C-alpha cells in the first residue's frame, strides 16, 4: 500500500469514524426515550390515567429495565457497526432475478441476516421483559393440576414469550432482507445542505409511520408462518429444556390462539419498537455520513498535503472520500470566492496552476469515463442479438487515423479489456483519449496563450472533425435487434452474478476469431445463437435471467452523483473564472472542457433516445429508503445542460474565439442562442 493510500485510509477512518461514533452516541442517547415511550404505551390504561403514568415512570427505574437498556445499547452498537461496514455511496443494482438471489445467499449477506436475526431476538426478549405480564418468562409453573402430590411443580413453556422471541428473529431477518432489497446501505446525498437536527426532525414522522405500517405487515406474515411451522421450534424448546405443555392454555399455532388481541397488540408494539430504534440508528448514520466535509484546497502545513482537495481528487481514494471531496468542490465553486481564489492560484515557486490542473483533470477524467461508459452501453444495447462480425471487419478494414492503433493499444486498460470495444469507432476513442490525456500533458506549456490555437485543441478539433461517429451507430445493421439473453454492458462489468463469466468469454472469443473468420467460427456462432434462442424459450430460465431494462440502465448511472458534482463544480469554476481568474489559468483548459461537455451532451442525448428509456422520472413514493439513485440520470441530463448554459451565458460571444470542432461549434451556437 502506498503512503498516499495509507494516509487516505487514515483520513477516511478519521472522518467516518467520528461521524459513526457521533451517530451511535445519539442513537444510544435516544434509546431511553424510545424505551420510555414503549413502556408507557405497552401498559396503556385509559381508565386509570394517573395510575398508568406513575406506574410506567416507576417501571423505568427498575433494575431489569436498566439491564435491558444496556443490552439494547449493545444491540444498537452492533447494528451500527453493520451499517458502517455495509454502507455504499454507489448502490449495487441487481439486473436480473438471479443476481438478486445470488446477492441474498452471498456469505456477507448471510452473516448480516443471521446477526440481525439474533439481534432482533435480543430486542424482542428485552421488549418481552419490559412488557411484563404474561410475556415475562419463558417457563412458568404449570397451572394444570397434573401432579398435586409433587413438591416440585412442573415447569411449563410460556408460548407467548417464545412467540415474541421468534417474532423478533423474524423481524431482524426481514429487516436485513429489506436492507438488501431496498438498497438501504446506499447513502444518498441530500439535495440541499441543512443542519443535522433539521434533517432528523424532517425524517422522523415518516420513520414512525413506516415503522408502524411495516410492523403490521411483518406481524401478519409472522403469524402465517407461525401457524404453519410454529410447532417445530416449540417442540424443540420443550425437548431441550425439558418443559411441559400447559394443557389449559390454547396452543398458539391455531386460529383461536393467534386471534388473541393482547398478543397481537404487544407483538405489533414490539415490532414497532424494534424497527424504530433500528431505523433511527440507520437514519442518524446516514445523516452524519453524508454531511459536507470541508477539505482544504492548499495545505497550511507540509504534512497536510495528502489531505487537501486536489490531492484527494487525483488519487484513488475510498469512494466515500471521493464523493465527499467532489461535494466539497461543488460547494466551494458555488459559494466561496476565497476558496475559488485558492483553486485559481499559482504555485509559489514556479508559478504553475497545480490546483486548477488537478481539479480540472480529475473532473474531465470522470466525465470522459462516463462518456465512454455510455457509448459502450449504447453499443451493447444496439448490438443486441446481432452477429458481431461485420463491425469488427469494418474496423479492421478502415484504419483511419495514423495514430489510432498506438492510442488504441494504450487505451486497453484492464477494466475495458473484456468490453465489446471493437464496436466503438476508433476515432471517438482517440479523440476522447486525446481529451483525456491532454490536460495533463499540455497544460504547463500552454499557459501563455489563452485563446490561441494550441496544438492540443487543434489536434482534438481535427480528430473530432473527421469523426462523425454517430454515423456508424445509425447504420442499418445495428438497428436489427433480436431476443437477448445475457447481453448488457452493465453486468459484464459490475454484477458478479452467476451468468457473468459466460458472456464475457463469448465476447472475447468472438473478437479473437474475428481476425481470421473461418467456417468453424461461423458454425460456432450459429450454434451459440441456437442455444441462446433455445434457452430463451424456456420460461423458467427466462424468469431468472431476463434482464430488467430499467435496472440495467440504473446500474449504468449508479455512480452518477459524482459526475453531477464534477459538472457543477467545473462549470461554476469556469463561470467564476470570467471575473476571478487573474492569471488566466482556466482559459487554457476551456477548449477541452467544452469538448468534453459537448461530447457528453451528445452521448446523453442519444442515450435518452434509446428504446426502453423513459424520459420522465418515475413517481417516487414517500418511502424511507431513498430511491434517488433511480433518478440520477435525469439529474445528470439537467445538470449537464445547465452546466453548458452556465459557461455559454457567462462567456457569451467570447466563446467564438475558442478552438472547437465545427460540429461542436454548431452545438455551441445553439446553446448561445438558447435553442437547446
Amino acid at each position, binding site marked *: 500500500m502506498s503512503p498516499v493510500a495509507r494516509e487516505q485510509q487514515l483520513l477516511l477512518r478519521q472522518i467516518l469514524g467520528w461521524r459513526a461514533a457521533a451517530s451511535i452516541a445519539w442513537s444510544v442517547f435516544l434509546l431511553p426515550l424510545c424505551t420510555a415511550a414503549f413502556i408507557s404505551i405497552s401498559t396503556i390504561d385509559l381508565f386509570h390515567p394517573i395510575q398508568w403514568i406513575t406506574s410506567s415512570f416507576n417501571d423505568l427505574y427498575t433494575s431489569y429495565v436498566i439491564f435491558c437498556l444496556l443490552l439494547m445499547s449493545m444491540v444498537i452498537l452492533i447494528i451500527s457497526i453493520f451499517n458502517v461496514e455495509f454502507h455504499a455511496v454507489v448502490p449495487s443494482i441487481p439486473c436480473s432475478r438471479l443476481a438478486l438471489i445470488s446477492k441474498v445467499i452471498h456469505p456477507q449477506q448471510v452473516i448480516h441476516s443471521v446477526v440481525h436475526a439474533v439481534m432482533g431476538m435480543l430486542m424482542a426478549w428485552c421488549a418481552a421483559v419490559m412488557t411484563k405480564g404474561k410475556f415475562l418468562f419463558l417457563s412458568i409453573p404449570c397451572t394444570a393440576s397434573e401432579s398435586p402430590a409433587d413438591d416440585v411443580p412442573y415447569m411449563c413453556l410460556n408460548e407467548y414469550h417464545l412467540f415474541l422471541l421468534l417474532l423478533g428473529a423474524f423481524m431482524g431477518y426481514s429487516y436485513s432482507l429489506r436492507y438488501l432489497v431496498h438498497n438501504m446501505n446506499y447513502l444518498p446525498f441530500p439535495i440541499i*445542505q441543512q443542519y443535522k437536527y433539521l434533517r432528523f426532525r424532517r425524517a422522523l414522522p415518516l420513520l414512525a409511520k413506516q415503522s408502524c405500517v411495516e410492523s403490521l405487515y411483518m406481524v401478519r406474515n409472522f403469524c402465517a408462518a407461525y401457524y404453519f411451522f410454529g410447532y417445530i421450534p416449540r417442540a424443540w424448546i420443550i425437548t431441550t429444556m425439558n418443559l411441559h405443555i400447559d394443557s389449559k392454555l390454547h396452543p398458539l399455532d391455531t386460529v383461536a390462539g393467534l386471534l388473541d388481541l393482547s398478543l397481537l397488540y404487544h407483538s405489533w408494539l414490539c415490532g414497532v419498537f424494534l424497527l424504530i430504534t433500528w431505523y433511527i440508528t440507520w437514519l442518524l448514520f446516514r445523516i452524519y455520513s453524508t454531511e459536507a466535509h470541508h477539505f482544504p484546497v492548499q495545505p497550511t502545513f507540509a504534512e497536510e498535503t495528502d489531505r487537501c482537495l486536489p490531492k484527494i481528487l487525483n488519487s484513488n481514494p475510498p469512494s466515500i472520500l471521493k464523493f465527499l471531496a467532489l461535494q466539497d468542490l461543488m460547494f*466551494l465553486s458555488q459559494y*466561496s470566492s476565497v476558496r475559488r481564489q485558492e483553486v485559481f492560484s499559482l504555485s509559489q515557486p514556479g508559478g504553475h496552476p497545480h490546483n486548477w490542473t488537478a481539479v480540472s483533470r480529475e473532473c474531465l477524467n470522470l466525465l470522459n469515463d462516463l462518456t465512454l461508459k455510455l457509448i459502450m452501453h449504447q453499443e451493447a444495447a444496439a448490438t443486441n442479438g446481432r452477429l458481431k462480425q461485420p463491425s469488427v471487419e469494418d474496423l479492421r478494414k478502415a484504419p483511419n487515423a495514423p495514430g489510432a492503433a498506438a492510442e488504441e493499444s494504450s487505451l486497453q486498460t484492464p477494466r475495458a479489456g473484456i468490453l465489446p470495444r471493437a464496436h466503438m469507432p476508433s476515432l471517438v476513442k482517440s479523440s476522447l483519449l486525446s481529451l483525456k490525456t491532454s490536460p495533463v500533458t499540455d497544460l504547463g506549456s500552454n499557459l501563455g496563450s489563452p485563446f490561441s490555437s494550441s496544438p492540443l485543441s487543434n489536434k482534438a478539433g481535427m480528430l473530432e472533425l473527421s469523426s462523425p461517429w454517430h454515423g456508424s451507430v445509425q447504420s442499418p445493421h445495428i438497428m436489427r435487434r433480436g431476443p437477448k439473453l445475457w447481453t448488457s454492458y452493465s453486468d459484464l462489468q459490475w454484477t458478479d452474478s452467476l451468468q457473468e463469466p459466460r458472456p464475457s468469454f463469448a465476447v472475447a472469443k468472438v473478437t479473437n476469431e474475428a481476425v481470421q473468420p473461418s467456417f468453424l467460427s461461423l458454425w460456432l456462432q450459429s450454434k451459440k445463437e441456437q442455444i441462446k434462442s433455445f434457452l430463451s424459450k424456456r420460461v423458467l430460465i427466462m424468469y431468472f435471467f431476463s434482464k430488467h431494462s430499467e435496472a440495467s440502465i440504473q446500474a449504468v448511472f449508479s455512480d452518477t452523483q459524482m459526475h453531477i458534482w464534477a459538472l457543477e463544480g467545473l462549470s461554476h469554476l469556469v463561470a467564476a473564472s470570467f471575473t476571478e481568474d487573474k492569471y488566466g489559468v482556466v482559459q487554457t483548459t476551456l477548449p477541452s472542457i467544452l469538448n468534453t461537455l459537448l461530447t457528453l451532451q451528445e452521448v446523453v442525448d442519444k442515450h435518452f433516445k434509446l428504446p426502453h428509456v423513459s424520459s420522465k422520472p418515475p413517481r417516487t413514493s414517500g418511502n424511507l429508503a431513498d430511491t*434517488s439513485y433511480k433518478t440520477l440520470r435525469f439529474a445528470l441530463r*439537467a*445538470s449537464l445542460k445547465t452546466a453548458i448554459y*452556465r459557461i455559454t*451565458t457567462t462567456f457569451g460571444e467570447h466563446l467564438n474565439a475558442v478552438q472547437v470542432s465545427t460540429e461542436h461549434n454548431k452545438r455551441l451556437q445553439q446553446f448561445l442562442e438558447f435553442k437547446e
Partner: protein
Amino acid sequence: MCSLALFPPPPPPGDITLYEYNNALVSGRGNEKLPRPVQAQVEDLPTLTIPKETLKAHSRLEHSAKPAFVHHREMLWKRCINAWRDVGVAGVLEELANAEGEGDLNQELGEPSWTDSAKQLAVQWLKAGSRCTLALCRWVSSLHGSFFPHLSLPSEDMIAEFSPAVDWAGCSIRAFAWHPHTSKFAVALLDDSIRVYNAKSATIPILKHRLQRNVASLAWKPLCASILAVACHSCVLVWHLDPTSLSTRPSSGCAQVLSHPGHCPVTSLAWAPSGRLLLSASPVDTAMLVWDVSTENCVQLQWFGGGGVTYLAWSPDGSKVLAATPSAVFRVWEVQTWTCEKWPTIKGPCRTGCWSPDGSRLLFTVQGESVIYSLSFLEYSGELQGQVGGSKTASVVADLSETTFETLYGEERIGGEVHSMVWDPRGERLAVVIRGNYSSSNCRTIIAVFRTRNSPVFELLPCGFLQGEDGAQPQLVSFHPCFKKGAVLTVCWSTGKVSHIPFFFVSGPFPSFSSPQSPLVPLGSQSSAREQPLFSEL
C-alpha cells in the same frame, strides 16, 4: 417626508407614457409614432392585446366524471369505502354523518327483526359520533383560522389576495414572466391557458393542461432554454418546451407535475439563479418546498409560525431568499445551509420585496403602510456559514402616502399602499405599483418609477409616473432581463394590453461609480429641481 411630492406631475389624461429619455419620462398620444431610434430598439418585442371578451371561461368546473352518471344508491358501507378511496378519512366521516334512509328500505320488508334494530342503533351511533368528530374538526380549524384569517378564505380569493397581479380575479392576464436570458415571455390568461411569445419567432405555443387551473405565478428556469414552472391550484407544473419546435399546442405530456399533499394553492415560485432548485410556496402550508425538478424530489423547509408563505424572491446572486408570510413577519433564508433570519414587522404582513442585483439590499413594503423599507445585508462570501448577515433595522427609503398634484386638467390624488415592486436587472430603475385608496374615488392605481443607485451608497431619485391608455389600470409589471441600452419595463394593463416602455440610460460596468444618467446633457432647469434625492445613505 412625503416623497411623491418631488415627482413631476402625471402626464395629462389621454397621454400614454412612451419611453424614458434624458432622465424624464416622455409621453404622447397613443397613435403617435415613436422616434426612429427608440422604435428600432423595441421593435422586435411583441406588443399584444388580449381582451377579456375573447377568452372563453372554462366550461367544466368539475374535474371528475361523477356528474355525468346517473346517481345510484348504494349500501352505506360501500359508499364509505368509496369515500375513503376518494377523499380519505374526512370523506368517510362526511358520508356517515349524512347517512339516512338506510332504515327505510328495511321497513318495507315488514317486521323489523332484532338484527335490523341493532343495525339501526349502530348506524345512529356512528352517525352521532362522526357528526361530533366533524364538528370538533371544524371548531379546531375555525380556531386556527381565527389566528390566521387568510385560511378561512376560499382558495380563489386567497390567490387573488396574494397574487402580484392587482386584479387577479377580473383581469384577462393573470401572470407574466420574462425568460431570464432571451426575449421571450409567457402570459397566463383568465381561461387557464398560457401563451408563450418569442421576439424571434412567430409561433405562439399555447399551453393547456388538465391540472393547470388558477395560475398564480410563472417562472422560467434560468440557464435553460425553455423550461417554465407554473404555480397552479393543486400543483406545480413544469413545462418542457422545445424551443425549436413549431407546434402551437404542446401536449400535456411535456409537463411534469410536482405535487405534495397539503401544498395547495401554490401562489409563488422562485428558481435558484443557478437553475438547480425550484422553491414553491403556498399560503396554506407553513413549509416551503425545495424541488429538485429533474428528479421530482422535494425537501420541506418547515418553519412553524406565520401560517404559510405568500411571496418568494430569490436574490439575483443566488445567496438569499425572501419568504413573506400572511402574518406580520417575514424571513430571509440563506441558501447554503438553509437557515433563516426572522423579521417581525410592526403593521402588517410583508407585501412584496425585491433584491438589488448583488443581493446586498432588499427593498420591501408592508401591507397597511405606504412606505418602502430597505434592508441591507453583508457582502456575501461563503465564509459565514449559516448566517444571513442582515443589518439590525430596516430603514424607510420612500414615503408614498397620498399627495395631491395640481395639474392643468384638475387635481389628481396619487399615493397609497404598494402592491408590487420590481427592480431592473442592473439596479438602476425601480418600478412600483401604487394601489390607490379605495375610499377616495379619484385616487387611482399608478406606476411610479424611481431611479436608483446602489453603489457606493444607496440612493433613490424620483423619475416619474407611468400612464397607460384611458381607463387602463396597471396589472403586472416586469423588467426585461437583458436590454442592452438601459431597461425595458413591461406592463400588463387591465385592458389586456401588454406594452413595453424602454428607459434609455447608460450605466457603467459593475460596480458603477458613474451616475445613471442619460447620455445627453440634461435640459438645465427642468431637471435640476428633480435631482434632489429622495433618499441617500450619505
